[in-house]
Structures are given as C-alpha cells and as structure tokens.
C-alpha cells in the first residue's frame, strides 16, 4: 500500500471505516516502522483498529493484555522449570553427561516458553502485536516494552539477543488513566482516537446495520452526540453501544423515535444506573420529539 488513501480503502474493505487520521497513522507506522500509540476514551474502536490492521495484512494478531503486576515472565518469556527439572533428573539417572552439557542443554530454546512479546518477534509470518491498555502497567514495567518497541529485539541472558525475523506492526492502546513515560511516547506515533464525527459514525452504523433507514441513523447519531457532550456521564456511549441500539431498533421495527423510545434505549447506551437516571432526568426537562 503506497498511499494513505489505499490504506483507507483496505481498512474499509475489512469492515473498519477509518478517518483520515487513522489511515494516515497506519500508513506512516508501516513506512516509518514505528509503533502506533492509540489513546482515547473507552469504546472508540482502539482494539478494533488493531484487529482490522491484522486482517488487511492477513497477519496473525498477538495480544498482550496489560494489567497491574504484569511481569517479564508473562510479557516476554519464561523458562519451563518443569521440563528443565525432568531433564536434570533424567541426566542424573543416565549419569553420562557433565554438568556443563546439562546446563547448556536445559537453557536452550527447547525449554523456553514464549510469551506474547517474544512470540511476536520470533513469528516468521507477518504479525500484528497489540499491547492493550498500556496505561495499566506500572511505570517500571513500561521499560520492559522499550527494547521491543524501538529495536524489535528481546535480550535473554542465557541465549543472547533475539532479533525480529520480520518486524511486527505494533499497536499500543491506552485509556489515558495515567500519562505514559516520555521514553515510551517518543518511540511511537501518537494517535488520539476520540468519538467519531457525525458523518463517520452514521456511515459506521449504516455499514454494521445495513437495513437501517438513513434518517433513523442520523437521528441516532444526533442523540448520541448530545448525550456525549451535554450530560456529565461516568461513561459516554461507545460506538459499539450505538450499533447495538441501532440493531435493536431495526429488530423491533421502530422507524421513528419518540421520548419514550429514547428512554427505553438508554440502558443499551449507558452502563451505569446513575448515568441512565441523570440522562432520563435531563431528557424529561427538554423538548424531545413525540
């Protein structure tokens, strides 16, 4: 793919409708060989983007879900102790080999358990590495990622440095619960993914719910835009929740929305009781169709 437009078309063809920004990010990430750091509120299609990128390249998607307390043995690699012990005991029984040979044997690749980062690096097919919710890592653990992100290699003391056979496309996501370290950010292209523009959201709905009427889709998008910006919500409706609502309306064969129907739809869009209550209260006090 030699232009951002072609990337956009490719993403579109696998069912992900990109904005210019997203297409440019994917394009540049490939050309510059840099990871993309996608930041933004939950439910704006960050993880979905990684999946779509994997689909267009026909690549394997390897996912590292971050959480507090994630360590090397979960992210990079681990030695298979059980197998190593068995090998030692077997060698003792046979009593044939010297200690050095045993040692060199048990610290070989045969006894290495690959974790997502190493797996992504050693994969000989094309790979998309998704590092999900990086902001949940502690600052210290973030450093684990740096070697992989900039040099695409992993150092294992007993074996040496493992270089990437084929450089994976790396996508990191963050919900911005904390500021990531400068070192990490410097290595990445920074893509902010907010809620989509009205036109884009309408197109997404039309794509995912093909038999929805255009007018209804526009109305949905208007309502959701209002909810996102005018009501102070704990969690604003995500794109997938809007799609769910659209689907529900099509199934129920509702063509026009009135006050009561909008209120019925709120539990699909909003996931906190408080949010639903405050949205209901506010909608009752304003002029709503029907």
């Amino acid at each position, binding site marked *: 793919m030699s*232009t*951002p*437009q072609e990337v956009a078309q490719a993403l579109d063809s696998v069912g992900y409708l990109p904005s*210019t*920004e997203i*297409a*440019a*990010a994917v*394009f*540049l990430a490939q*050309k*510059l060989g840099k990871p993309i750091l996608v*930041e933004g509120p939950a439910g704006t299609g960050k993880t979905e983007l990684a999946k779509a990128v994997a689909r267009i390249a026909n690549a394997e998607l390897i996912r590292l879900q971050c959480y*507090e307390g994630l360590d090397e043995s979960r992210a990079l690699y681990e030695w298979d*102790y*059980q197998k190593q*012990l*068995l090998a030692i*005991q077997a060698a003792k029984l046979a009593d044939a080999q010297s200690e050095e040979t045993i040692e060199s044997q048990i610290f070989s690749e045969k006894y290495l358990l690959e974790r997502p980062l190493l797996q992504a690096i050693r994969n000989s097919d094309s790979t998309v590495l998704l590092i999900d919710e990086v902001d949940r890592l*502690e600052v210290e653990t973030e450093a684990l990622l740096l070697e992989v992100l900039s040099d695409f290699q992993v150092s294992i003391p007993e074996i040496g440095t493992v270089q990437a056979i084929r450089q994976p496309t790396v996508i990191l996501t963050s919900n*911005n*619960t*904390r*500021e990531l370290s*400068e070192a990490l*950010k*410097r290595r990445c*292209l*920074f*893509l*902010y993914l907010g809620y989509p523009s*009205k036109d884009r959201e309408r197109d997404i709905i039309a794509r995912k719910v093909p038999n929805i009427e255009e007018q209804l889709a526009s*109305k949905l998008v*208007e*309502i959701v*835009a*209002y909810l996102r*910006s*005018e*009501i*102070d*919500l*704990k969690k604003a409706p995500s794109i997938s929740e809007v799609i769910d609502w659209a689907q529900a309306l099509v199934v129920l064969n509702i063509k026009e929305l009135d006050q009561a129907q909008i209120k019925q739809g709120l539990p699909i869009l909003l996931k906190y009781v*408080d*949010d639903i209550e*405050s949205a209901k209260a506010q*909608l009752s006090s*304003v*002029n*709503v*169709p029907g």
Partner: protein
Amino acid sequence: MSQVKYLGSNAEMLGSFIDELRRSGLPISASEYAEALTALELVGYESAEVFRESLKLVLVKKISHLQTFEKVFQRFFAFHLDSSEKQADGFSDVSGVLSASGSGSEASEVDLESLVQHALEAGVDRDISLAASTAVTWYAGIDPSRSVGAAYYIQKTLSSLSVASQIEDLSEGLDVFEIHNLKNNAKKLESKVAADVRRRLLMLRGVEAIREPSTNTPDNVAFLYATAADLQQMRKLLRPLAAKLAVKLGRRRRQQQKRTLDVRATIHQSLRTGGVPVKLRHKPRLKHKPELIVLADLSGSVASFARFTLNLLHVMQGQFSTLRSFAFVDEMDEITESLKRDDFSSAMNQVVGNAKLLGAHGHSDYGSAFKLFEARFLESLKASSTVLILGDARNNYHHPEAESLKQLAGKVKSVYWLNPEPTSYWDTGDSVMADYIPYLTGAVEVRTLKQLERFIDHNL
C-alpha cells in the same frame, strides 16, 4: 481535495511551523523534526487533511497538546491550506482577497443569509467554509493599512452575522438534539470565519499580523486567574489526573505491603517440579482503597481557585470511594455527600446551599478551620489516610493555630499542602505558610494543572 502550497522549501516551512509550536509550549525534539519531514515526503502534499494529520501524529505526544496544535496549525497554514475548492485555484492577486473569494462576491446579503442557514442545517464542511468566507468578504471590511489584529475582524464579522439569533430562528419546532446539532455547526462556522480572516490578513500583511501572544496550553493556566472558559477546558483534563491520583495512592500502599507466603499453595505447586519449590506462591494482597481527606479553602480571595477545587473534588469523588471532602472559610463543614451528585452544577448548588462555611467574620481563617476540624472530625481519621489541604494560607491575620494542624498530622500518614500562589509569595502579608510547614509531609506550589500533575507524579 485541496492542495498544500508553499513557496519556500519544505524543510524551511516545517522548521518555522515547529518553532511556532515550541513557542506555544509543545516540546519537539530535533529527531521529531526530522521524522516529520520524512513523514511528509511519504504522504505527499496532495491532501491538506492527510498533511495535517501526519504532522499531528509525529509532533504531538499528549492529549492536552492537541488543541494547541490545531490552533497553531490553523494560524500558520491558514493561507497555504484552502479548505474550499473555490479558493484552491489561487488567490494570486491581492485585490481579489480584499473584495471577494470566488462566487462569494456576487452573493447579496440575502443570499448570504440563506448560505449561512444552509450551512448550519446541513453541517457540510464545504458549505460552512463557503458561508464563512462570504461572510468575511461582506462584513469584515479588512483594511490592510490599519494595524488591528485578526480578533477585531473576527469579532466584527461574527457580530454582523449574528449566528445566535439565526440559531434561535431556526430552532423553532426542533427537538433538543437538532438544536444541539445546529449549535455544533455554528461553532464550526465561527472557527472557519476566524481561519478565513487570518488567511486574508496573512496574505495582506505577512506573518506578523496574525501572530498572537503565545497560546497557553490549558494545563499551563494559573488557577487563580482562570476564566470560566479556562475552567471548562481544564475539567476535561481533570478526570485522568484524578484517576492518576487514585492509582498512585492505591498503588503505593500496595507496594509497601509485604507479601505473605502461601505455604500450602507453594508446596502444592512444588509437587509439579519434583518437590523443589521453584515458584513461590503468595497470598493475594488485600486491595487497599486509597483513603483521602481533602480540606479546601472556598473563600472569595481564591474564588477562581475555589471553583477549580470544587471541580477537582467533584471529579475525584468518582475515583475514590473513600474520599472525604471538607470545605472551610472560617467555619468548617463536610461536603462529601453534596459532591456525590453526578452533575457538577447541581453538586455545586448543593455545596453552596447546604454547607455551613461562613462563621463570625466570613473571611478565610485557617486557624479556626483547623481547630474546628480537630474538635469535630479528628477522631474519625485513620492512620493510613492521606490529607490534602488546598488553599493560599492567607489567614487574614488571625491566629494560625498550628498546634491543631500538628494534632491532625500526628493522626494520619501524611499531610500535603497545595498552594495556588507562587512560592515567592508565601509568608508575605497575611500568608502563614511557615507556621504550618513543620507539620507537613510536603508543601508545594500548585498554580497550574501541569504542576498538579508533577506533584502527583513525583511527590506522592
């Protein structure tokens, strides 16, 4: 799609654009500059949008800098990037800029009205741009010999255009969502008008004409002088900060805690490795909910800061289930319950309506506030709590009652004081910071969100 046109070399153009960004507070390294150039070579200059997004991807590393980037970009490339196709075929002669842009010249005032109406209703970018540039042609009356700034012409155009009353007319019979949509389109129109005015000024008078006092990023505005609009901006940045604070306080406690070995599970696990306990198993650590007590000065002398403080507390309430908030002027009251309202303005009304903050004289009196706190609430504090005090320590020459603060500090884990005044102002006039500092775990100047963030990152 419109194209990017620039007369100088690309490297030069990019260099001065980056200078402008740096002036506005974005840290951009030399390697990012180089990378931006490479990126532009890769994406080409055919599409203005791709051009902008590519630069943004490479040069911006922080959400709070996005808006500054957009502003500077608008200003800097206003002339080089024409967003409507009409203008793409060139603005080569200056007289054309003064009188007209494309078909806008022939549009009469009546047409303009319908243009604007259409733009507001349909919300299509192209229509909005056309309406904006036509309006500027009609109303701005740009006079290149006068050295007034862009703001003057923008204001002039917008007031003649009276978008607000147009919206009012159009809103009749519409529901709230459609009105919301109209208002959003109106915002777009206003920013297009601003961009158009700047583009013309740039054309006529050169870059100096549109250089504005360096744009402040919202994380750099002093709380004490923040306007309502600034606060609105800040509020968006507050949620992640509050989350960070929660994480930080929660995490620190967890790290300090010693992990206890789960002997049973360890032995069980060791069976898999022939009785050798290769891996230790630990008992799950208790998740500590961070406990935070905030004492906030809500007096008039720090009005802007107080409003910010309430915003912060309100956002924090969502993050900490164990946050207790207290407010004071010269009386002290707990406002935790009031802040639990989801909607900020109703929470604010609750605080104003229900909390008893004013005592005998109604000026802030830290001494009496601490004394009251000691008498009423000291017993309820836990040894693991963290206390934050927010205020300027301007005591109106009352007794500082540092002894009460000492009692408080002895009862809890740590006490931090966040002061919205620069350190150099502390202990001048009626400020009594020095009396309190001996009992504090830390006292920091927190004038801006940036400083607040630094405090959370490094002091906690």
